[in-house]
């Protein structure tokens, strides 16, 4: 690890101003100043010397950034510095957004969840082993090609994988995109903006060297969730190679708004570990909308979810895995 100076500003605005390009482990690997939230992914990148900042800006000293609150209308805001343990165990989250609580409780191991933050989790770099390997100068690091497309790609993307085959690393993001969450961003002038999390993530076709739309001198401060409409059902399911701490091979979040007549008004079906960003399966959503969801609709939606997939040499197994998970997640949401 290189030597770096360590700063602990007291406000978000100071933190934004302290860095040219901010967020934990953000975007390009050669920035001079980076923000530190929990510091999990950041320390990994520092140890690999994929990131060699001159300044690490700690966000922990900023008060209130870990608050989880509900407004009068019932909407919930989760501070970006809330730890994964705090979020997964919080009664507001467990009560109104159980799919998010499940997704987060299954992320990493308990020791990491005690430190890792929701904001840092959304901004962590992908875990593609070629990206993480100092020996591979891949596209995302400014190199000439994607090593995964013709290499060891068993854990890589099955959608939108023609340029760079990373999968998005956050399971929390799968649930948050299905819940139509928004992120709040705070800049060095003190201004804030909000945008849907779905639009915050950037795929390789838009920019191969970044994974999100965070601008220089901006800090992710909160995640906003709307109060679920009555009749909302949801579930998150994951499948890994082992039951304990592991990255998922596939994970699925389903959020269904069921009317009093039992008809599905709205459906969100989002696949994680499937594409460079959380993958919204629109055809699966259409297969559910306007129907009385049950076994038949779940099966149709599951098949539709995989339409258009372009598996690589070693990851076609994910097609069957996702089809089963989508069907089970729909049925679990309805149960």
């Amino acid at each position, binding site marked *: 690890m290189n*030597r*770096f*100076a360590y700063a602990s500003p007291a406000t978000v605005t100071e933190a934004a101003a302290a860095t040219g390009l901010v967020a934990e482990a953000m975007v390009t690997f050669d920035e001079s100043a980076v923000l530190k939230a929990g510091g999990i992914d950041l*320390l990994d990148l520092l140890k690999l010397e994929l990131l060699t900042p001159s300044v690490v800006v700690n966000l*922990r000293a900023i008060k209130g950034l870990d608050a989880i609150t509900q407004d009068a209308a019932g909407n919930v805001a989760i501070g970006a510095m809330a730890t994964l343990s705090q979020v997964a165990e919080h009664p507001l989250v467990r009560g109104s957004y159980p799919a998010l609580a499940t997704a987060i409780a299954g992320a990493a191991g*308990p*020791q*990491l969840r*005690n430190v890792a933050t929701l904001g840092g989790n959304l901004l962590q770099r992908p875990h593609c082993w070629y990206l993480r390997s100092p020996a591979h100068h891949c596209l995302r690091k400014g190199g000439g090609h994607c090593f995964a497309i013709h290499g060891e790609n068993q854990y890589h993307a099955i959608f939108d994988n023609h340029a760079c085959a990373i999968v998005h690393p956050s399971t929390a993001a799968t649930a948050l995109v299905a819940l139509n969450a928004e992120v709040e961003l705070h800049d060095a002038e003190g201004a804030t903006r909000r945008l849907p999390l779905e639009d915050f993530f950037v795929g390789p076709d838009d920019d191969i060297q970044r994974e999100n739309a965070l601008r220089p001198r901006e800090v992710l401060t909160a995640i906003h969730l709307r109060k679920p409409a009555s009749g909302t059902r949801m579930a998150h399911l994951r499948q890994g190679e082992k039951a*304990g701490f592991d990255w998922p091979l596939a994970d699925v979040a389903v959020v269904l708004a069921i009317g009093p007549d039992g008809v599905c008004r709205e459906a969100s079906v989002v696949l994680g570990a499937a594409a460079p960003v959380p993958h919204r399966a629109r055809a699966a959503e259409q297969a559910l909308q306007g129907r009385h969801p049950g076994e038949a609709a779940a099966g149709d939606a599951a098949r539709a979810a995989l339409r258009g997939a372009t598996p690589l040499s070693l990851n076609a197994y994910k097609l069957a895995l996702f089809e089963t998970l989508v069907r089970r997640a729909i049925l679990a949401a309805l149960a």
Partner: protein
Amino acid sequence: MPNEPEPIRHFRLNGRNCAVPAADHTLLVETLRETLGHVGTKQGCDGGECGACTVLIDGVARLACLTRTGECEGHEIETIEGLAAGGRMSRLQRAFHERLGTQCGYCTPGMIMAAESLLRRDPHPTETAIREALSGNLCRCTGYVKIVEAVLEAAGAG
């Protein structure tokens, strides 16, 4: 900053005041093992995947390989060395010993500290809760059954 002295960090270690030099990039696992000679805490994967370096910080299980020593300023650190009061094994340590919850021993300090944090929160955990609490700790001898039995015994349910 090549020749600047490293700042002194103050924290409590196993109930005693501790003042050690550590740079901003120094990790707690390095300070414990290399500066303080507390080699009970193991450095396994050094990447947050194996749990061998689990310690308690203010009673919460954390990984010493992903904690900078500078962040420990003013906090209470507990390591495996702190459990055997007066040189006598704790109930949990004795259960690992008697139930053969230890094979090569490398994962054991992390397993015990993760289990210790669970038993403080939940003195009578279910087997499911034990498996969940130990899900961030790898045993490459694959001795999980006896490890879970040891924790159950320490909780009075063995």
